[in-house]
Protein backbone atom coordinates (compact mmCIF):
# COMPACT_ATOMS: atom_id res chain seq x y z
CA UNK A 1 0.00 0.00 0.00
CA UNK A 2 2.96 2.27 0.40
CA UNK A 3 3.44 2.51 -3.36
CA UNK A 4 0.13 4.26 -3.96
CA UNK A 5 -0.10 7.97 -3.45
CA UNK A 6 -2.08 8.69 -0.35
CA UNK A 7 -5.49 10.22 -0.76
CA UNK A 8 -7.14 12.49 1.71
CA UNK A 9 -10.67 12.47 0.45
CA UNK A 10 -13.29 9.81 0.18
CA UNK A 11 -13.21 8.09 3.56
CA UNK A 12 -16.48 6.31 4.16
CA UNK A 13 -17.72 5.37 7.58
CA UNK A 14 -20.66 2.97 7.79
CA UNK A 15 -22.12 2.74 11.26
CA UNK A 16 -24.86 0.40 12.42
CA UNK A 17 -26.73 0.59 9.16
CA UNK A 18 -30.03 -1.24 8.97
CA UNK A 19 -32.30 -1.30 5.95
CA UNK A 20 -35.81 -2.61 5.93
CA UNK A 21 -37.75 -2.62 2.67
CA UNK A 22 -41.49 -2.02 2.87
CA UNK A 23 -41.57 -1.84 6.69
CA UNK A 24 -45.35 -1.91 6.94
CA UNK A 25 -45.87 -4.47 4.24
CA UNK A 26 -43.64 -7.35 3.32
CA UNK A 27 -40.99 -6.17 5.81
CA UNK A 28 -37.79 -7.41 4.26
CA UNK A 29 -34.79 -6.82 6.47
CA UNK A 30 -32.09 -6.47 3.87
CA UNK A 31 -29.36 -5.32 6.18
CA UNK A 32 -28.96 -5.51 9.92
CA UNK A 33 -26.60 -3.37 11.94
CA UNK A 34 -23.63 -3.27 9.57
CA UNK A 35 -20.55 -1.30 10.38
CA UNK A 36 -17.23 -0.92 8.66
CA UNK A 37 -14.81 1.71 7.49
CA UNK A 38 -13.29 2.45 4.13
CA UNK A 39 -10.20 4.62 4.21
CA UNK A 40 -9.62 7.42 1.73
CA UNK A 41 -8.30 6.03 -1.53
CA UNK A 42 -8.94 2.46 -0.52
CA UNK A 43 -10.18 -0.14 -3.00
CA UNK A 44 -12.97 -1.87 -1.12
CA UNK A 45 -14.64 -4.89 -2.65
CA UNK A 46 -17.97 -6.13 -1.33
CA UNK A 47 -18.85 -9.77 -1.90
CA UNK A 48 -21.69 -11.92 -0.71
CA UNK A 49 -24.78 -13.85 -1.76
CA UNK A 50 -27.37 -12.21 -3.95
CA UNK A 51 -29.84 -10.03 -2.16
CA UNK A 52 -30.43 -6.41 -1.46
CA UNK A 53 -27.67 -5.87 1.03
CA UNK A 54 -24.76 -4.81 -1.12
CA UNK A 55 -26.77 -2.61 -3.42
CA UNK A 56 -28.49 -1.07 -0.39
CA UNK A 57 -25.22 0.46 0.74
CA UNK A 58 -24.43 1.65 -2.73
CA UNK A 59 -27.83 3.26 -3.08
CA UNK A 60 -27.49 5.03 0.25
CA UNK A 61 -24.02 6.39 -0.46
CA UNK A 62 -25.00 7.43 -3.96
CA UNK A 63 -28.18 9.07 -2.76
CA UNK A 64 -30.72 6.92 -4.60
CA UNK A 65 -32.38 5.51 -1.52
CA UNK A 66 -32.24 5.95 2.23
CA UNK A 67 -31.57 3.71 5.22
CA UNK A 68 -33.87 2.72 8.04
CA UNK A 69 -31.41 3.31 10.86
CA UNK A 70 -27.73 4.00 11.39
CA UNK A 71 -25.45 6.54 9.81
CA UNK A 72 -23.11 6.88 6.87
CA UNK A 73 -20.37 9.48 6.87
CA UNK A 74 -18.22 10.73 4.02
CA UNK A 75 -15.07 12.46 5.18
CA UNK A 76 -16.66 13.10 8.52
CA UNK A 77 -19.83 14.59 7.09
CA UNK A 78 -23.14 12.82 7.59
CA UNK A 79 -24.51 11.84 4.21
CA UNK A 80 -27.14 9.28 5.09
CA UNK A 81 -29.39 8.63 8.06
CA UNK A 82 -33.11 8.11 8.60
CA UNK A 83 -33.55 11.88 8.90
CA UNK A 84 -31.11 13.08 6.29
CA UNK A 85 -30.36 11.75 2.85
CA UNK A 86 -27.97 13.55 0.58
CA UNK A 87 -28.92 13.80 -3.10
CA UNK A 88 -26.89 12.21 -5.89
CA UNK A 89 -23.97 14.34 -7.02
CA UNK A 90 -20.76 14.09 -8.95
CA UNK A 91 -18.58 13.47 -5.93
CA UNK A 92 -20.06 9.99 -5.65
CA UNK A 93 -20.19 8.48 -9.12
CA UNK A 94 -21.86 5.19 -9.96
CA UNK A 95 -21.04 2.74 -12.73
CA UNK A 96 -24.13 0.60 -13.27
CA UNK A 97 -24.36 -3.15 -13.69
CA UNK A 98 -25.89 -3.28 -17.13
CA UNK A 99 -24.36 -0.03 -18.21
CA UNK A 100 -26.12 3.30 -18.29
CA UNK A 101 -24.38 5.15 -21.06
CA UNK A 102 -26.95 7.33 -22.78
CA UNK A 103 -27.70 5.40 -25.97
CA UNK A 104 -28.68 8.57 -27.79
CA UNK A 105 -25.38 10.31 -27.19
CA UNK A 106 -22.05 9.51 -28.79
CA UNK A 107 -19.16 8.26 -26.69
CA UNK A 108 -17.57 11.66 -26.38
CA UNK A 109 -20.85 13.36 -25.59
CA UNK A 110 -21.46 10.84 -22.86
CA UNK A 111 -18.08 11.50 -21.31
CA UNK A 112 -18.29 15.28 -21.36
CA UNK A 113 -21.87 15.33 -20.12
CA UNK A 114 -21.02 15.63 -16.42
CA UNK A 115 -18.58 18.56 -16.48
CA UNK A 116 -20.62 20.48 -19.03
CA UNK A 117 -23.95 20.11 -17.29
CA UNK A 118 -22.43 21.03 -13.95
CA UNK A 119 -21.06 24.17 -15.53
CA UNK A 120 -17.53 23.25 -14.50
CA UNK A 121 -16.11 23.34 -17.99
CA UNK A 122 -16.92 24.77 -21.36
CA UNK A 123 -17.76 22.23 -24.03
CA UNK A 124 -14.53 22.64 -25.96
CA UNK A 125 -12.47 22.30 -22.79
CA UNK A 126 -14.31 19.15 -21.80
CA UNK A 127 -13.83 17.63 -25.25
CA UNK A 128 -10.07 18.24 -25.00
CA UNK A 129 -9.86 16.54 -21.66
CA UNK A 130 -12.09 13.66 -22.71
CA UNK A 131 -9.93 13.06 -25.77
CA UNK A 132 -6.82 13.04 -23.62
CA UNK A 133 -8.35 10.50 -21.28
CA UNK A 134 -9.42 8.28 -24.15
CA UNK A 135 -5.99 8.48 -25.74
CA UNK A 136 -4.27 7.51 -22.54
CA UNK A 137 -6.24 4.28 -22.37
CA UNK A 138 -6.20 3.54 -26.08
CA UNK A 139 -9.84 4.28 -26.88
CA UNK A 140 -9.25 7.12 -29.30
CA UNK A 141 -10.97 5.81 -32.42
CA UNK A 142 -14.46 5.59 -31.04
CA UNK A 143 -15.34 9.11 -30.03
CA UNK A 144 -18.20 9.57 -32.51
CA UNK A 145 -19.69 6.14 -32.14
CA UNK A 146 -22.91 5.38 -30.33
CA UNK A 147 -22.66 3.01 -27.37
CA UNK A 148 -24.79 0.28 -28.98
CA UNK A 149 -22.28 0.06 -31.83
CA UNK A 150 -19.53 -1.03 -29.46
CA UNK A 151 -18.78 -4.16 -27.48
CA UNK A 152 -19.77 -4.34 -23.79
CA UNK A 153 -16.15 -4.20 -22.77
CA UNK A 154 -15.60 -0.90 -24.50
CA UNK A 155 -18.92 0.43 -23.26
CA UNK A 156 -17.94 -0.33 -19.70
CA UNK A 157 -14.63 1.46 -20.05
CA UNK A 158 -16.32 4.49 -21.51
CA UNK A 159 -18.72 4.53 -18.60
CA UNK A 160 -15.83 4.45 -16.17
CA UNK A 161 -14.23 7.37 -17.98
CA UNK A 162 -17.52 9.22 -17.84
CA UNK A 163 -17.44 8.80 -14.08
CA UNK A 164 -13.78 9.69 -13.61
CA UNK A 165 -13.78 12.93 -15.58
CA UNK A 166 -15.80 14.38 -12.71
CA UNK A 167 -13.02 13.75 -10.17
CA UNK A 168 -15.33 12.00 -7.78
CA UNK A 169 -14.31 11.31 -4.20
CA UNK A 170 -15.88 7.86 -4.43
CA UNK A 171 -16.49 5.61 -7.43
CA UNK A 172 -19.12 2.92 -6.91
CA UNK A 173 -19.24 0.02 -9.31
CA UNK A 174 -22.12 -2.44 -9.11
CA UNK A 175 -20.86 -5.71 -10.65
CA UNK A 176 -19.63 -3.74 -13.66
CA UNK A 177 -17.87 -6.66 -15.35
CA UNK A 178 -20.53 -9.25 -14.79
CA UNK A 179 -21.28 -11.25 -17.90
CA UNK A 180 -18.07 -10.39 -19.68
CA UNK A 181 -15.95 -13.29 -20.85
CA UNK A 182 -12.66 -14.04 -19.10
CA UNK A 183 -10.49 -12.33 -21.67
CA UNK A 184 -12.55 -9.17 -21.63
CA UNK A 185 -12.52 -9.23 -17.85
CA UNK A 186 -8.75 -9.41 -17.77
CA UNK A 187 -8.58 -6.35 -19.98
CA UNK A 188 -11.04 -4.57 -17.70
CA UNK A 189 -9.02 -5.41 -14.62
CA UNK A 190 -5.84 -4.07 -16.15
CA UNK A 191 -7.68 -0.97 -17.22
CA UNK A 192 -9.09 -0.38 -13.77
CA UNK A 193 -5.75 -1.14 -12.19
CA UNK A 194 -3.95 1.41 -14.37
CA UNK A 195 -6.49 4.06 -13.61
CA UNK A 196 -6.54 3.36 -9.93
CA UNK A 197 -2.79 3.39 -9.53
CA UNK A 198 -2.40 6.57 -11.58
CA UNK A 199 -4.94 8.51 -9.54
CA UNK A 200 -6.19 6.56 -6.54
CA UNK A 201 -9.63 7.29 -5.23
CA UNK A 202 -11.99 5.40 -3.01
CA UNK A 203 -13.54 2.47 -4.87
CA UNK A 204 -16.67 0.70 -3.73
CA UNK A 205 -16.76 -2.37 -5.93
CA UNK A 206 -19.49 -5.00 -5.73
CA UNK A 207 -18.88 -8.41 -7.25
CA UNK A 208 -19.54 -12.12 -7.07
CA UNK A 209 -16.24 -13.03 -8.62
CA UNK A 210 -13.82 -13.88 -5.82
CA UNK A 211 -10.72 -13.78 -8.02
CA UNK A 212 -11.70 -10.36 -9.15
CA UNK A 213 -12.25 -9.29 -5.56
CA UNK A 214 -8.87 -10.31 -4.33
CA UNK A 215 -7.06 -9.17 -7.43
CA UNK A 216 -8.47 -5.66 -7.36
CA UNK A 217 -9.05 -4.83 -3.72
CA UNK A 218 -7.18 -3.67 -0.62
CA UNK A 219 -9.98 -4.97 1.47
CA UNK A 220 -12.62 -7.56 0.82
CA UNK A 221 -15.80 -7.17 2.83
CA UNK A 222 -17.72 -10.44 2.99
CA UNK A 223 -21.40 -10.11 3.78
CA UNK A 224 -23.85 -12.69 5.05
CA UNK A 225 -27.19 -13.60 3.56
CA UNK A 226 -30.25 -11.60 4.40
CA UNK A 227 -30.42 -9.94 6.87
CA UNK A 228 -26.95 -8.92 5.71
CA UNK A 229 -24.21 -8.41 8.25
CA UNK A 230 -20.46 -8.25 7.98
CA UNK A 231 -19.19 -11.78 8.09
CA UNK A 232 -15.54 -11.06 7.65
CA UNK A 233 -13.16 -8.43 6.39
CA UNK A 234 -10.10 -9.75 4.64
CA UNK A 235 -7.16 -7.40 4.15
CA UNK A 236 -5.40 -8.08 0.91
CA UNK A 237 -1.82 -7.06 1.33
CA UNK A 238 -0.57 -8.10 -2.08
CA UNK A 239 1.84 -5.65 -3.67
CA UNK A 240 0.74 -2.83 -5.97
CA UNK A 241 0.33 -2.50 -8.86
CA UNK A 242 -1.38 -5.87 -9.08
CA UNK A 243 -0.16 -8.04 -11.89
CA UNK A 244 -1.56 -11.26 -13.20
CA UNK A 245 1.27 -13.49 -12.19
CA UNK A 246 0.17 -12.82 -8.63
CA UNK A 247 -2.78 -15.07 -9.21
CA UNK A 248 -0.46 -18.07 -8.86
CA UNK A 249 1.38 -16.87 -5.77
CA UNK A 250 1.08 -18.61 -2.43
CA UNK A 251 -0.16 -15.50 -0.66
CA UNK A 252 -2.93 -15.16 -3.17
CA UNK A 253 -4.02 -18.75 -2.78
CA UNK A 254 -4.10 -18.37 0.98
CA UNK A 255 -6.30 -15.29 0.71
CA UNK A 256 -8.53 -17.01 -1.79
CA UNK A 257 -8.99 -19.93 0.58
CA UNK A 258 -9.89 -17.61 3.43
CA UNK A 259 -12.44 -15.72 1.37
CA UNK A 260 -13.83 -18.84 -0.24
CA UNK A 261 -14.49 -20.55 3.07
CA UNK A 262 -16.35 -17.57 4.42
CA UNK A 263 -18.39 -17.10 1.29
CA UNK A 264 -19.11 -20.79 0.88
CA UNK A 265 -20.68 -21.02 4.29
CA UNK A 266 -22.96 -18.11 3.54
CA UNK A 267 -23.74 -19.37 0.06
CA UNK A 268 -24.94 -22.67 1.50
CA UNK A 269 -27.17 -20.87 3.95
CA UNK A 270 -28.56 -18.70 1.20
CA UNK A 271 -29.21 -21.66 -1.04
CA UNK A 272 -30.97 -23.49 1.71
CA UNK A 273 -33.07 -20.47 2.46
CA UNK A 274 -34.20 -20.63 -1.16
CA UNK A 275 -32.98 -17.21 -2.06
CA UNK A 276 -34.10 -16.12 -5.49
CA UNK A 277 -31.38 -14.66 -7.63
CA UNK A 278 -32.15 -11.01 -7.87
CA UNK A 279 -30.08 -10.00 -10.76
Amino acid at each position, binding site marked *: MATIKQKTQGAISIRNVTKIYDPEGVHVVAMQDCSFEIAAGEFAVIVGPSGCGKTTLLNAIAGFDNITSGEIYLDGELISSPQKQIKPAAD*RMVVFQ*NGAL*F*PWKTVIENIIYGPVVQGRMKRSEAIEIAREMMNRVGLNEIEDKYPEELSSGIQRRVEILRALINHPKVVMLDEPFRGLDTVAKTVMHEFLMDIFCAAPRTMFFITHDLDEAIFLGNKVVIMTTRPAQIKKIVHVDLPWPREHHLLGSEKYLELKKEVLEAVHEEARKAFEAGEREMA
Partner: protein
Amino acid sequence: MINRLRSMLTDSQLFKALVGILIFLSIWYVLTAVLNLPRFKLIPNPIAVIKEWVSFEPISGRSLFTKEYYIDIGYSVVRTLVAFFLATFLGVFLGLFMGWNRIFFDFTFPIVETLRPMPPLSWIPLAVLILPGVEVAVVYVTFIAAFFATVLNTLLGVFSIDRNYFLAARCLGSKPKDIFLNVIVPGSLPFIFTGLQIAMGVSWMSLVAGEIISGQRGLGYAIYEGYSLFQYEQVVSYMFTLGILGYISSAGIRAVGRRLMAWEARRRGA
Protein backbone atom coordinates in the same frame (compact mmCIF):
# COMPACT_ATOMS: atom_id res chain seq x y z
CA MET B 1 -35.91 -25.02 -65.44
CA ILE B 2 -38.17 -26.33 -62.72
CA ASN B 3 -35.57 -25.41 -60.17
CA ARG B 4 -35.30 -21.87 -61.47
CA LEU B 5 -39.04 -21.51 -61.31
CA ARG B 6 -39.09 -22.88 -57.81
CA SER B 7 -36.36 -20.54 -56.60
CA MET B 8 -38.14 -17.61 -58.19
CA LEU B 9 -41.27 -18.61 -56.35
CA THR B 10 -39.62 -18.89 -52.98
CA ASP B 11 -36.89 -16.27 -53.10
CA SER B 12 -37.58 -13.18 -55.10
CA GLN B 13 -39.59 -10.72 -53.06
CA LEU B 14 -40.46 -8.52 -55.98
CA PHE B 15 -41.65 -11.46 -58.01
CA LYS B 16 -43.92 -12.64 -55.26
CA ALA B 17 -45.26 -9.15 -54.70
CA LEU B 18 -46.14 -8.70 -58.32
CA VAL B 19 -47.71 -12.12 -58.58
CA GLY B 20 -49.70 -11.51 -55.45
CA ILE B 21 -51.03 -8.21 -56.69
CA LEU B 22 -51.79 -9.72 -60.08
CA ILE B 23 -53.73 -12.55 -58.49
CA PHE B 24 -55.66 -10.06 -56.40
CA LEU B 25 -56.53 -7.95 -59.44
CA SER B 26 -57.50 -11.01 -61.44
CA ILE B 27 -59.81 -12.31 -58.73
CA TRP B 28 -61.32 -8.85 -58.47
CA TYR B 29 -61.81 -8.69 -62.22
CA VAL B 30 -63.27 -12.15 -62.50
CA LEU B 31 -65.68 -11.62 -59.65
CA THR B 32 -66.96 -8.30 -60.90
CA ALA B 33 -66.83 -8.44 -64.68
CA VAL B 34 -66.73 -12.02 -65.84
CA LEU B 35 -68.98 -14.06 -63.61
CA ASN B 36 -72.24 -12.28 -63.23
CA LEU B 37 -72.49 -12.88 -59.52
CA PRO B 38 -75.42 -11.06 -57.93
CA ARG B 39 -73.72 -8.67 -55.54
CA PHE B 40 -70.33 -8.46 -57.13
CA LYS B 41 -71.51 -7.13 -60.46
CA LEU B 42 -72.46 -3.86 -58.83
CA ILE B 43 -68.84 -3.23 -57.92
CA PRO B 44 -66.69 -1.65 -60.60
CA ASN B 45 -64.05 -3.90 -62.08
CA PRO B 46 -60.36 -2.97 -61.94
CA ILE B 47 -60.08 -2.16 -65.62
CA ALA B 48 -62.96 0.28 -65.47
CA VAL B 49 -61.45 1.89 -62.39
CA ILE B 50 -58.10 2.38 -64.04
CA LYS B 51 -59.73 3.70 -67.18
CA GLU B 52 -61.56 6.34 -65.19
CA TRP B 53 -58.53 7.17 -63.11
CA VAL B 54 -56.25 7.93 -66.06
CA SER B 55 -58.85 9.27 -68.42
CA PHE B 56 -58.55 12.74 -69.91
CA GLU B 57 -62.30 13.14 -69.93
CA PRO B 58 -63.52 11.21 -66.94
CA ILE B 59 -67.25 10.75 -66.47
CA SER B 60 -67.02 11.96 -62.93
CA GLY B 61 -64.86 14.91 -63.82
CA ARG B 62 -62.17 13.65 -61.48
CA SER B 63 -59.08 11.83 -62.66
CA LEU B 64 -55.33 12.11 -62.61
CA PHE B 65 -55.58 14.59 -65.41
CA THR B 66 -58.22 16.90 -64.02
CA LYS B 67 -57.56 19.74 -61.69
CA GLU B 68 -60.52 18.81 -59.48
CA TYR B 69 -58.64 15.72 -58.40
CA TYR B 70 -55.74 17.74 -57.14
CA ILE B 71 -57.97 20.32 -55.54
CA ASP B 72 -59.70 17.54 -53.63
CA ILE B 73 -56.33 16.15 -52.60
CA GLY B 74 -55.20 19.61 -51.61
CA TYR B 75 -58.14 20.22 -49.30
CA SER B 76 -57.75 16.90 -47.57
CA VAL B 77 -53.99 17.08 -47.26
CA VAL B 78 -53.98 20.60 -45.86
CA ARG B 79 -56.65 19.75 -43.29
CA THR B 80 -54.82 16.63 -42.23
CA LEU B 81 -51.46 18.34 -41.96
CA VAL B 82 -52.77 21.27 -39.97
CA ALA B 83 -54.56 18.99 -37.54
CA PHE B 84 -51.63 16.60 -37.34
CA PHE B 85 -48.97 19.19 -36.65
CA LEU B 86 -51.09 20.92 -34.07
CA ALA B 87 -51.76 17.59 -32.39
CA THR B 88 -48.10 16.62 -32.49
CA PHE B 89 -46.93 19.91 -31.04
CA LEU B 90 -49.45 20.01 -28.22
CA GLY B 91 -49.60 16.27 -27.68
CA VAL B 92 -45.87 15.69 -27.40
CA PHE B 93 -45.39 18.59 -25.03
CA LEU B 94 -48.29 17.53 -22.87
CA GLY B 95 -47.11 13.94 -22.82
CA LEU B 96 -43.53 14.85 -21.98
CA PHE B 97 -44.57 17.20 -19.25
CA MET B 98 -46.95 14.68 -17.76
CA GLY B 99 -44.19 12.09 -17.74
CA TRP B 100 -41.70 14.46 -16.18
CA ASN B 101 -43.70 16.05 -13.42
CA ARG B 102 -45.71 13.77 -11.18
CA ILE B 103 -47.89 16.53 -9.75
CA PHE B 104 -48.85 17.73 -13.20
CA PHE B 105 -49.57 14.14 -14.16
CA ASP B 106 -51.88 13.61 -11.19
CA PHE B 107 -53.91 16.65 -12.17
CA THR B 108 -54.14 16.05 -15.88
CA PHE B 109 -54.26 12.29 -16.36
CA PRO B 110 -57.81 11.72 -15.07
CA ILE B 111 -59.18 14.32 -17.47
CA VAL B 112 -57.21 12.93 -20.38
CA GLU B 113 -58.33 9.40 -19.59
CA THR B 114 -61.96 10.48 -19.36
CA LEU B 115 -61.93 12.31 -22.68
CA ARG B 116 -59.80 9.82 -24.55
CA PRO B 117 -62.28 6.93 -24.90
CA MET B 118 -64.75 9.22 -26.64
CA PRO B 119 -64.30 8.34 -30.28
CA PRO B 120 -63.06 11.42 -32.14
CA LEU B 121 -65.88 11.10 -34.63
CA SER B 122 -68.47 11.40 -31.89
CA TRP B 123 -67.24 14.97 -31.49
CA ILE B 124 -68.51 15.89 -34.94
CA PRO B 125 -72.03 16.99 -34.07
CA LEU B 126 -70.87 19.08 -31.13
CA ALA B 127 -67.96 20.53 -33.03
CA VAL B 128 -70.09 21.55 -35.99
CA LEU B 129 -72.55 23.32 -33.74
CA ILE B 130 -70.09 25.06 -31.47
CA LEU B 131 -67.11 25.91 -33.61
CA PRO B 132 -67.06 28.68 -36.17
CA GLY B 133 -67.46 27.06 -39.49
CA VAL B 134 -67.41 23.55 -40.83
CA GLU B 135 -63.76 23.73 -41.83
CA VAL B 136 -62.71 24.31 -38.23
CA ALA B 137 -64.97 21.50 -37.05
CA VAL B 138 -63.46 19.01 -39.46
CA VAL B 139 -59.90 19.99 -38.54
CA TYR B 140 -60.81 19.90 -34.86
CA VAL B 141 -62.14 16.36 -35.02
CA THR B 142 -59.03 15.23 -36.87
CA PHE B 143 -56.91 17.02 -34.29
CA ILE B 144 -58.64 15.31 -31.39
CA ALA B 145 -57.98 11.90 -32.89
CA ALA B 146 -54.30 12.55 -33.44
CA PHE B 147 -53.87 14.38 -30.17
CA PHE B 148 -54.89 11.61 -27.79
CA ALA B 149 -52.91 8.98 -29.68
CA THR B 150 -49.83 11.22 -29.47
CA VAL B 151 -50.20 12.03 -25.78
CA LEU B 152 -50.64 8.41 -24.82
CA ASN B 153 -47.68 7.16 -26.80
CA THR B 154 -45.46 9.99 -25.59
CA LEU B 155 -46.39 9.14 -22.00
CA LEU B 156 -45.63 5.48 -22.60
CA GLY B 157 -42.34 6.57 -24.09
CA VAL B 158 -41.35 8.48 -21.00
CA PHE B 159 -42.34 5.60 -18.73
CA SER B 160 -40.38 3.18 -20.88
CA ILE B 161 -37.09 4.85 -20.08
CA ASP B 162 -34.87 2.69 -17.88
CA ARG B 163 -34.64 4.14 -14.38
CA ASN B 164 -30.86 3.82 -14.44
CA TYR B 165 -30.56 6.57 -17.02
CA PHE B 166 -32.25 8.94 -14.63
CA LEU B 167 -30.01 7.84 -11.78
CA ALA B 168 -26.88 8.19 -13.89
CA ALA B 169 -27.94 11.65 -15.02
CA ARG B 170 -28.50 12.73 -11.43
CA CYS B 171 -25.11 11.40 -10.35
CA LEU B 172 -23.55 13.43 -13.11
CA GLY B 173 -25.01 16.59 -11.63
CA SER B 174 -28.04 17.20 -13.82
CA LYS B 175 -30.69 19.65 -12.79
CA PRO B 176 -34.34 18.85 -13.63
CA LYS B 177 -34.10 20.85 -16.85
CA ASP B 178 -31.06 18.83 -17.94
CA ILE B 179 -32.82 15.58 -17.22
CA PHE B 180 -35.76 16.70 -19.33
CA LEU B 181 -33.62 17.64 -22.32
CA ASN B 182 -31.04 14.88 -22.08
CA VAL B 183 -32.95 11.87 -20.84
CA ILE B 184 -36.69 12.31 -21.22
CA VAL B 185 -36.81 13.79 -24.70
CA PRO B 186 -34.34 11.49 -26.46
CA GLY B 187 -35.43 8.47 -24.42
CA SER B 188 -39.04 8.72 -25.45
CA LEU B 189 -38.40 9.45 -29.12
CA PRO B 190 -38.89 5.87 -30.33
CA PHE B 191 -42.32 5.65 -28.74
CA ILE B 192 -43.18 9.16 -29.88
CA PHE B 193 -42.52 8.21 -33.48
CA THR B 194 -44.56 5.06 -33.25
CA GLY B 195 -47.31 7.22 -31.82
CA LEU B 196 -46.99 9.72 -34.64
CA GLN B 197 -47.48 7.01 -37.23
CA ILE B 198 -50.56 5.84 -35.42
CA ALA B 199 -51.74 9.43 -35.11
CA MET B 200 -51.28 9.95 -38.81
CA GLY B 201 -53.39 6.90 -39.61
CA VAL B 202 -56.06 7.99 -37.20
CA SER B 203 -55.98 11.52 -38.62
CA TRP B 204 -56.75 10.33 -42.11
CA MET B 205 -59.55 8.18 -40.82
CA SER B 206 -61.18 10.99 -38.88
CA LEU B 207 -60.64 13.45 -41.68
CA VAL B 208 -62.44 11.31 -44.23
CA ALA B 209 -65.36 10.76 -41.89
CA GLY B 210 -65.49 14.42 -41.05
CA GLU B 211 -65.50 15.33 -44.71
CA ILE B 212 -68.27 12.91 -45.51
CA ILE B 213 -70.48 14.05 -42.70
CA SER B 214 -70.03 17.73 -42.86
CA GLY B 215 -67.64 18.80 -45.47
CA GLN B 216 -67.41 20.60 -48.68
CA ARG B 217 -64.71 19.39 -51.05
CA GLY B 218 -61.97 17.03 -50.11
CA LEU B 219 -61.44 13.37 -50.84
CA GLY B 220 -63.95 12.05 -48.33
CA TYR B 221 -66.65 14.34 -49.54
CA ALA B 222 -65.88 13.48 -53.18
CA ILE B 223 -66.18 9.79 -52.40
CA TYR B 224 -69.62 10.30 -51.01
CA GLU B 225 -70.65 12.53 -53.83
CA GLY B 226 -69.36 10.02 -56.34
CA TYR B 227 -71.39 7.33 -54.63
CA SER B 228 -74.58 9.33 -54.75
CA LEU B 229 -73.98 10.06 -58.44
CA PHE B 230 -73.41 6.35 -59.19
CA GLN B 231 -69.82 7.02 -60.24
CA TYR B 232 -68.40 4.00 -58.54
CA GLU B 233 -65.21 3.90 -60.56
CA GLN B 234 -64.28 7.27 -59.21
CA VAL B 235 -65.17 6.12 -55.70
CA VAL B 236 -62.70 3.28 -55.95
CA SER B 237 -59.98 5.40 -57.52
CA TYR B 238 -60.36 7.87 -54.68
CA MET B 239 -60.15 5.06 -52.14
CA PHE B 240 -56.82 4.06 -53.58
CA THR B 241 -55.72 7.68 -53.66
CA LEU B 242 -56.39 7.88 -49.94
CA GLY B 243 -54.42 4.71 -49.47
CA ILE B 244 -51.45 6.12 -51.33
CA LEU B 245 -51.52 9.40 -49.42
CA GLY B 246 -51.76 7.53 -46.13
CA TYR B 247 -48.78 5.40 -47.05
CA ILE B 248 -46.68 8.37 -48.14
CA SER B 249 -47.40 10.29 -44.95
CA SER B 250 -46.51 7.33 -42.72
CA ALA B 251 -43.35 6.70 -44.71
CA GLY B 252 -42.46 10.34 -44.32
CA ILE B 253 -42.78 10.12 -40.57
CA ARG B 254 -40.68 6.98 -40.48
CA ALA B 255 -37.99 8.71 -42.53
CA VAL B 256 -37.88 11.68 -40.17
CA GLY B 257 -37.72 9.29 -37.24
CA ARG B 258 -34.76 7.47 -38.71
CA ARG B 259 -32.85 10.74 -39.09
CA LEU B 260 -33.59 11.93 -35.57
CA MET B 261 -32.80 8.61 -33.99
CA ALA B 262 -29.50 7.85 -35.67
CA TRP B 263 -28.41 5.76 -32.71
CA GLU B 264 -31.20 3.25 -33.25
CA ALA B 265 -30.12 2.67 -36.82
CA ARG B 266 -26.53 2.05 -35.89
CA ARG B 267 -27.12 -0.65 -33.32
CA ARG B 268 -24.54 -3.40 -33.36
CA GLY B 269 -25.80 -6.13 -35.62
CA ALA B 270 -28.66 -4.04 -36.96
